[in-house]
């Protein structure tokens, strides 16, 4: 038997993806045209080291009128799209904090867009959203401060060239924004490494006797994020809390926006699954209403409810919409109705704790039953789900 060509057997050489091929580009690259247009139109003086003024950062995050700008030598009009759906006062508070002495801690339930907002703020303020530390149980003080190139230290001893700066140190040297994701996943000792950084705005390097302090340039600050469900895991010390301003990111505030988000995202997912199934607006509305009310522990007509232990985020609602569509496509008539939602809801709400079943039943008895008397969709939902909860 002839021997196969080795050239044919070898795997294709791995080439780095071009910019257009990467799976995900950072905000400052993806929205470079908007950031540049805002910079060109900025009439106010930015704080030191900031690329944009606070007002321009606000416009970048919340969207605004299209701006005329010169990009690559051409005069163009650049629309400034909305990046974050939430109360304007939240974003204002976050921006002002970053211009102040205190660091910013974005707290909220999973799926509320904390990291998303953090990335965009860093991109708009310092043009770099990638100076990031991901907090985990394995994060060490070296990840926060600096480490050494051991081989070179053995050969040459500790020298500034042999020091490997952490994202914190890079942000301090450039007057940029450090992003610290999921800070409460880190153990308290590691968190406390931040106390002196936030107070003194400096990192001591005792191994370098002649250059033993790295001081932050103006503009340096920290955006940390923390999941409210993890807050009890490693709660911040009082000393660290004092150095942070907390900005709470709630779920999408208004029902209409949430419905639009569920509608749009579900349609995209259905398309990606090549599903011809339709999600009628009343069903999306019903679904968004149920998730919102369960999450808030209160119905639109004022009935207080127990909250389930699961987050009931918008993302979960989208998941139920997709499951309902799959159910309708493969086992139903193709169109998603309240009954499909009812069949797929329990799995999304009752996950970790069986007590959530009682929570769901309370919702069905106290809220859905009241509406069922007047509304056909609610009746169908109520009649389908109640027997399953017995």
């Amino acid at each position: 038997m002839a021997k196969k060509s080795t050239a044919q057997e070898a795997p294709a050489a791995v080439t780095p993806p071009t910019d257009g091929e990467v799976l995900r580009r950072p905000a400052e690259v993806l929205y470079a045209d908007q950031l540049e247009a805002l910079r060109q139109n900025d009439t106010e003086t930015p704080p030191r080291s900031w690329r944009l003024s606070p007002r321009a950062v606000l416009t970048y995050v919340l969207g605004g009128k299209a701006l005329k700008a010169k990009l690559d030598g051409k005069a163009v009009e650049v629309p400034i799209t909305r990046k974050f759906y939430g109360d304007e006062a939240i974003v204002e508070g976050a921006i002002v904090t970053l211009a102040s002495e205190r660091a910013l801690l974005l707290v909220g339930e999973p799926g509320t867009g904390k990291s998303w907002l953090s990335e965009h703020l860093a991109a708009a303020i310092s043009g770099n959203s990638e100076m990031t530390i991901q907090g985990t149980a394995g994060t060490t003080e070296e990840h926060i401060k600096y480490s050494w190139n051991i081989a070179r230290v053995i050969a040459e001893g500790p020298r500034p060239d042999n020091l490997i700066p952490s994202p914190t140190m890079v942000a301090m040297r450039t007057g940029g924004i450090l992003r610290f994701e999921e800070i409460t996943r880190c153990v308290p000792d590691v968190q406390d490494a931040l106390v002196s950084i936030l107070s003194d705005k400096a990192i001591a390097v005792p191994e370098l006797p002649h250059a033993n302090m790295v001081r932050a340039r103006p503009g340096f600050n920290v955006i940390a994020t923390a999941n409210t469900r993890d807050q009890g895991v490693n709660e911040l010390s009082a000393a660290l809390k004092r150095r942070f301003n907390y900005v709470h990111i709630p779920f999408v505030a208004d029902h209409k926006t949430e419905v639009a988000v569920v509608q749009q995202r579900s349609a995209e997912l259905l398309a990606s699954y090549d599903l011809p199934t339709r999600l009628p607006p009343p069903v999306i509305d019903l679904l968004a209403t149920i998730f919102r009310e369960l999450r808030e522990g209160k119905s639109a007509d004022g009935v207080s409810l127990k909250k389930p232990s699961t987050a009931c985020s918008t993302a979960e609602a989208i998941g139920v919409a997709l499951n309902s569509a799959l159910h309708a496509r493969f086992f139903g008539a193709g169109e998603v109705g309240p009954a499909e939602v009812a069949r797929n809801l329990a799995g999304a709400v009752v996950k970790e704790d069986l007590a959530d079943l009682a929570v769901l039943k309370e919702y069905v008895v106290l809220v859905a039953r009241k509406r069922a008397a007047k509304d056909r969709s609610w009746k169908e939902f109520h009649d389908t789900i109640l027997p399953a909860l017995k």
Partner: protein
Amino acid sequence: MPRARTKSNDADPLDRVSGRLPLDADALRARVESVLAEAPFWFPVRHHSPAVALHLERALLARRPELIFLEGPSQANDLIPHLIDPQTRPPVAIYCSYRDDDNVLGLAGLASPAPDVPARFASWYPLLAYSPEYVTLLTARRLGAEVVFIDLPHHALIRPAVPDQPPEGRAGGSTPLAPEPEPERLIVESDFYRELARAAGYRTWDEAWDSLFEARAFAGWEEFRAELATFCAAARATADAGHVAADGTLERERFMLRTIRQTLAGRKVAPEEAMVVCGGFHLFLDRDDPRPPPEPPAGTVYTTVVPYSFFRVSELSGYAAGNRAPQFYQTLWELTRAGRADDVLAEHVVAVLRQGRRESALSSADAIAVSQHARMLARLRGRPSPVLDDVHDALFTCCCKGDPKEAGIHLQRTIDEADIGTRIGLVTPALGQLPIVRDFYAQLDDLGLGEVLSRERAFNIDLDKRDPPAARRSAFLHRLRSLGVPLGQLTEAPSGDLTSGTLFREKWALRWGPQVESTLIERNLYGDTVESAALAKLTEELAREHAHAGRTARRLVEAIDMDLPDLVQRAEQVCSQAVDADERFVSLAQALTSLTLLERYAVFRNLRRARLDELIARCFDRACFALPGVAAVPEEQQPEVVSALLSLAEVVLRGGRAGLDRALFAEHVRQAVGSSPVPFLRGVFLGTLTELRELSPEGLAAELSALARAPADRLVTAGDFLDGVLAVSRTSILLGADSLVGAVDELLRAAGWEDFLVMLPRMRAAFERLHERQRDSLAGCVAARYGLAEAEEVTELRASVAAAARLARIDREVARIMERWDL
């Protein structure tokens, strides 16, 4: 959509909305100029605005008018000397009441409890130290100028009865008896304001006002006056004409115009020597309106000045034309006049943090961070200096470490306290006896209760509320009780038994004391009559307790006891919302108790039975779902849980009511059993299931006897368990005495001496809960179990002396333990 803030809030509001509204800005400006150039000289105001007060004071001092027309109740002109008396200290209010003695409006029985009781109406005009009206009065005194109030008496706006209209369509329907003029509502609902708020990103009207007028620097009072007049002109031009016509604005303006013209003519004062100080909206009244103002109806009009408080003027008290932060604006007023406007931020932040320090660690560093944050926020929002909204946002960002709705509850309360303040006003003694005191004595006479004043001793009265005079006495005494006036004690309340007639019977013990009058004087703050004060106090309590189902339902009962029909509907509504919002089992059960009590005399009181039934069913459902939440409450809360559970069980067992799901109740009691680690509460829940026939007495006894086979640490809890059972269950005693006795017997056999001693006090306390007959029944079972017949005579003790001594020792030991355990 995000707020599209322009660079600065200094931009002309008209320019901001240009192109977005069908508004001819040039014509509008021309109209404003023409009005501002008129004689007399018009000055627009907003009530309770320090900025207006400041500029107005300067304008008055600059123009030195001879005569000032001021928006205030025209029937209160005689009170002006008392208002500016040095011994009067704001906050005070002009209080005006009207009584339709001859029923000229035909509202007796509709707006009053009975056709023979005249309808009464009241209105308040609060004045703070920085109210432009109050500052006008003080400045006029300095200038020696005369002030004339020009507003239409409020009772002139009361609509007479329409013969064919049913009473409920008027008293509780959408058409109020007397329209409440709300110029600010007209502004807020105008197209101009809505568009401006959208363009500038104002979240509230207060934020808009403060940004546009309180926080901005003006070149002088002339510029301020022109800006405010332009703003009001634009709002009026785009306001809903229907609302303007419906809320009494036009009638009031006709009266104002006529008063101004007639007074000028009567006093022979040139218009150039006069000034008109009124709401900005009224500057643009129709000067050519040919219609005369309405004439006030005949009747008794009473007007006085009463002390007021910052809380009552605040929006939190429910006052419609309220001020959101009386103390904050007081500080703003005082420091601005002292030339220290820049210190307002620091003063208020420190005031909030000092207040908050009682419950959480807030440092000076926090105060610095909040102040810096507020200033930067204001700059970002295009304001020259922070307004109250910026301060609130900064406080939450810098001091609230979590979700403001949860971690920020204490901070919000602290902010409210610091914003509102606690100041109470004083009225000069020159004004004489307070009206509520006069009303009290008059009512005692009218109701034939004058005897109580004859000597200082208690006397008892027995009232049957089916008798109208007795019902009025009862309502009066309940009102006094609600106001905390220590005249009478309700010694026997209605029992709830409709058939026996005791539902309507009350017994009161009355006794006069010196505290009666002093309390009345304090309560004058609420109103000038016992009725109006009780109404105002109950309204305030409803607002305060709106989240507590049990208390709001109690208030509903009180509204009926006090015969305040106007409030019943409101209380019913608040109670309904509270039932929906409250998740506390005990509170919901208390609400259920009150509501079922009301239901029993629903027919007598003309209550809407269907609505009450629906509310009871909803309250019951919610209580059921809340029940598992009390499965492990600490000992001090257990008695109220037992009482709440009993009331729920009673409603279920009474039966005959549609909409109450017995199975739902039983299901949640079972859930509570499953999740309760507390032996006493487990007994309570299982006992309840036995009462509901959801668990047989044998099943209950089996639960008890299972403890006999449990390890010693569980066995000793049998006393607590049994105590819980007997706290709620009677069925188990009457129907299942045999099995219960068997279980106790098994338990006692299994227990060792030490375990027995631990268990015994609780067990003894459990049996002490029983009535004598029930104890006899149990004793009978014990006797039967041991083959003993009831003895006809005293049986001779056959035990040995040693055994008797041992029994006595056990008894003493148990008594000692019970004493130690406080049983």
